[in-house]
């Protein structure tokens, strides 16, 4: 039976959405082979990354300092119940978030590029022109393509880059997600990085 508690509970004025067990729960379900759980996880992580990116930008313009925390980490802290999540699920989450991050970024790069090229007579404001002077869109798309090429011969290398670059994970965290040793991860990363730099410079 449910009944009204006596009003000794302090009055709550603000209702905040805080980490609950749902992400953890979904990760567990997904880990045990429940595909529907993934279907529910993706939008949660996607929305969180989007929101964080927006606030990241606001923070940056306000204080003009770069935050060291990666978006994926922040999304994780905000979404998952720290007290009850296991290391495997944390790794799983990072793996998924890095993939989503890659998808979000590359998609947006393609869209923006298409729009900018299409609107030939579009007048860019000066700041925008400066900001896009180095065309991160072009580079991101090129990187995505190069990663696909890399994946065709070295799928594990490509995954390491995805986690490091798109997920912002450290070598240690990447090693954990990939179930590789620290040394192997380090080697994969340094080779892939050189290989990608060369591809991007070409």
């Amino acid at each position: 039976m449910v009944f009204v508690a006596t009003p000794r509970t302090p009055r709550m004025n603000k209702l905040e959405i805080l980490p609950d067990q749902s992400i953890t729960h979904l990760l567990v379900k997904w880990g045990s082979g429940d595909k529907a759980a993934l279907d529910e996880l993706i939008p949660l992580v996607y929305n969180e990354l989007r929101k964080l990116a927006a606030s990241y930008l606001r923070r940056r313009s306000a204080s003009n300092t770069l935050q060291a925390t990666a978006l994926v980490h922040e999304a994780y802290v905000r979404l998952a119940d720290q007290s009850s999540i296991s290391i495997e699920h944390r790794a799983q989450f990072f793996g998924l978030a890095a993939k989503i991050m890659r998808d979000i970024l590359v998609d947006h790069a393609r869209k923006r590029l298409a729009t900018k090229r299409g609107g030939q007579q579009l007048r860019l404001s000066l700041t925008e022109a400066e900001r896009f002077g180095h065309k991160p869109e072009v580079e991101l798309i090129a990187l995505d393509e190069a990663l696909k090429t890399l994946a065709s011969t070295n799928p594990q290398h490509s995954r390491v880059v995805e986690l490091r670059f798109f997920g912002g994970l450290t070598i240690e965290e990447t090693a954990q997600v990939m179930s590789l040793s620290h040394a192997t991860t380090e080697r994969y990363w340094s080779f892939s990085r050189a290989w990608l730099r060369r591809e991007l410079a070409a």
Partner: protein
Amino acid sequence: MTTPESMQRLEELFHEAVGLGPQQRAEFIARLRDSNPDLVAELESLMSAHEQPDSLIDAPAYEAGAEMIADTQPALLAGQVVAHYTVVGPLGKGGMGEVYLANDAKLDRKVALKLLPAEFTNHKERLRRFIQEAKTASSLNHPNIITIHEIGQTENLHFIATEFIDGQTLKRRKYTKMELPEILEVSIQVAGALQAAHAAGIIHRDIKPENIMLRPDGYVKVLDFGLAKLTENSGQSRTAGSEIDTMIRARTTPGTVLGTVNYMSPEQARGQALDQRTDVFSLGVVMYELAAGHVPFTGATKIDTLVSLLEKEPPPLDVAWPDMPAEFQRIISKSLRKNREERYQTIKDLLIDLKSFKEELAFSQKLGRSPSPLVQPGTAAAKAPAQTEGKPRRSALLILVAVIVLAGLLVGGAIWWRRAATGAAPGPAPAQPPVVQRTVNYWLTVQKYREEKPYGEPFRLRDDINFEKDYQLRLHINSSQGGHLYVINEGPSGADQAPTFNVMFPSTTANHGSALLTQNQQIQIPEQTWFKFDEQQGTERIWLVWAINPVPELEAVKGVANPKDRGVISSPGLAAAVNQFLKAHSSPSPSVERDADRTETIVKAPGDILVHVIKLEHH
């Protein structure tokens, strides 16, 4: 040719070289030039890249990408020019890409300008086929097919300029109930468009309310012929983890195959080759939705929806619309056959049935004007066709049934017509709609407790949790409709025990004790405090009853929701009446969906009373 083996060799050499000092490295490379000349150039370029850390890859992606993610501005702004079109403003985000209202400078007319996302236009062959189909459909010059003025390209941006339709899509329109003549009229016009397209060898593949536009003058326009072709197989380009990739793409890219599972045909869901019968099915789904107020196949997740689509039969239409003419049910049911061999084989056959039914309705309208009193058709007769559907009609009995049905149909149609039709279709809906639907949104706030102290801040419940000892909760209700709300808790009870109920709402702790909520009123139950659980463990049920009119069985017990009685319905007779009411009205289950953030649950049910049960585990 790069192979995994050559890459591996390269990587080994790379790491070996990196570990050496400059002098030794030069020697190493010199030695290699003799033994492995083809790898040297590659290795040297890698070594030089290794020492130049100023590439995009050297900072995490979010530094370069955050501003791109955060940018949710429309891709085109007013005043921008694409080819000879000047953008006036956004019209909306279509299934595929943004749509803008624009001015055609050459011909000084308004057009709808749709941008095609680059990811769909990268595949040249697919793009070519789409353009061919879209142009062919447009060139049919059919009044129900949207006219395409131009499919163009400026460098990387592909766009379609079509006639601008000053109307609304069926997706918007369907939120206000349609009368049968209007549903028929829309269905007939869509079927007409499809028939013309099919005759020209074009399958639409993506018939859904967003792709059907209604003009104020009654014309229906079908949009986006051939567009579905662009999204086919769009998940295949990825490498590892393709299943996840496909799902991610489906979720993050509107309009890809998984984006619209509600209107898919079973063969489409299975990824089989499609023929025109897929359009028959999708139109069937649209017709069903217009009649019932909800789509025939749904589930909590897209996967569940697909399972429902592939395996389950939709709820009978006469649940949502009790006096729905049997013939229309038969037409819809035949369009929705999972096996396409059993479906209408051509859209033309469907169109013929729709038109004859419309004529029958018109005929019974004349009957309906006759002064003799009309008899309500027997429900057995009205349901007969649905039951006999699909079986061979050989026996005399079935013929007899068919005759009764026809008679019932004519009379039923007449009653229906007289009640509902106030003007010639298409046109604005009459004031008293025959289909009533109840809809309510709710969410729960939970305050966890550990060792009798609040643990963390209260949060909105997103998923099933176990309510441990002392956890407290609140219920939040919001509806676009007004009505009477009752919230009843059913405690855990054994199979042989009578259920115990207590009233959570209306109560003195919220809404001043009244059950009546106005449109869009949002309430929190209780307002000041929280609900908590008693010692008994098990599954707690919270019944939401959302009715147009006061419910006598529940009005009778609402007095107990006060601090003294603590809401307990102690009279066995009243509890039995409440039990009977709840169980009688909770089947079939209402449709339940979650909003994008998964924090609000939207419940919809046909009829004037919605009963939904929330189950909470308390162990």
